[in-house]
């Protein structure tokens, strides 16, 4: 167990001249051996320090062993569940959780949007801005659900999403710059902010389709 404790154990629990290390009484196999006390060269402060170091190290080792034991049990349980066809693939689980979170967030969005439309004409001043921005909260929840899905899901799915997002971002930037030039030279009116969002989502959808297909 503890390497630091060993020399001390050897001194404290050496048995009748036998140099072999024996377990301390009460901790290992009980023996009738005579215990020789620690030599005077080692002070009690040093002993205490050694004991403290050892107990910490022992605790870490016991903790690590416990962790690996629990992991082993979980792994066995999962294997059994797989054999019985009861376990869910982590990706399937991630999709289910995402659909649940997405559904709840979208429901909240619809409710908040309706409330926002209803209240908008009934308030004045700064409250109008607050009411107009209220639907952002459930939209934020949708975004959080998407991020959590990407973190939980399968590694290939994450890679597909990453590549698709990069392509969509690039395409949106290219289209925005093109539109910007046309706007500068007065060929087109200033766009609505919704246009960028729609372009990005559309580009993401198209990019996902082609990237997914490429990995098949």
């Amino acid at each position, binding site marked *: 167990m503890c390497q630091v404790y060993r020399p001390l154990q050897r001194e404290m629990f050496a048995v009748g001249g036998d140099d072999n290390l024996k377990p301390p009484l009460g901790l290992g196999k009980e023996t009738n051996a005579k215990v020789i006390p620690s030599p005077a060269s080692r002070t009690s402060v040093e002993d205490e320090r050694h004991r403290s170091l050892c107990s910490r190290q022992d605790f870490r080792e016991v903790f690590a062993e416990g962790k690996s034991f629990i992991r082993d049990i979980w792994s066995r349980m999962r294997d059994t569940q*797989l054999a019985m066809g009861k*376990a869910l*693939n*982590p*990706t*399937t689980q991630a999709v289910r959780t995402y659909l649940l979170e997405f559904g709840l967030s979208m429901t909240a969005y619809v409710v908040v949007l309706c409330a926002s439309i209803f209240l908008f004409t009934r308030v004045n001043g700064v409250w109008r801005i607050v009411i107009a921005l209220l639907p952002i909260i459930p939209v934020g929840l949708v975004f959080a659900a998407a991020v959590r899905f990407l973190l939980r*899901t*399968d*590694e*290939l*799915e994450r*890679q597909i999403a990453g590549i698709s997002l990069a392509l969509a971002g690039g395409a949106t930037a290219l289209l925005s710059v093109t539109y910007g030039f046309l706007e500068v030279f007065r060929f087109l009116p200033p766009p609505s902010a919704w246009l960028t969002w729609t372009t990005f989502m559309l580009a993401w959808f198209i990019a996902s389709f082609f990237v*997914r297909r*490429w*990995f*098949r």
Partner: protein
Amino acid sequence: MKNRLKVLRAEEDWSQAELADRVGVARQTIVALEGGKYAPSLPLAFRLSKLFQKPVEEIFDPESAE
């Protein structure tokens, strides 16, 4: 990256979905791996190695990596 996943899977008589469940990925990942279109992450490579009880280099051919 070329690999022997398809052969090893056939030896165990597992479907792609079954193998995917055993290593905790989507079936599409197994399809992409077998098709050599996707190089797995280290954790996944080690999970496959543990599952088939073969070293990683025996499952994946590092020479064929682009």
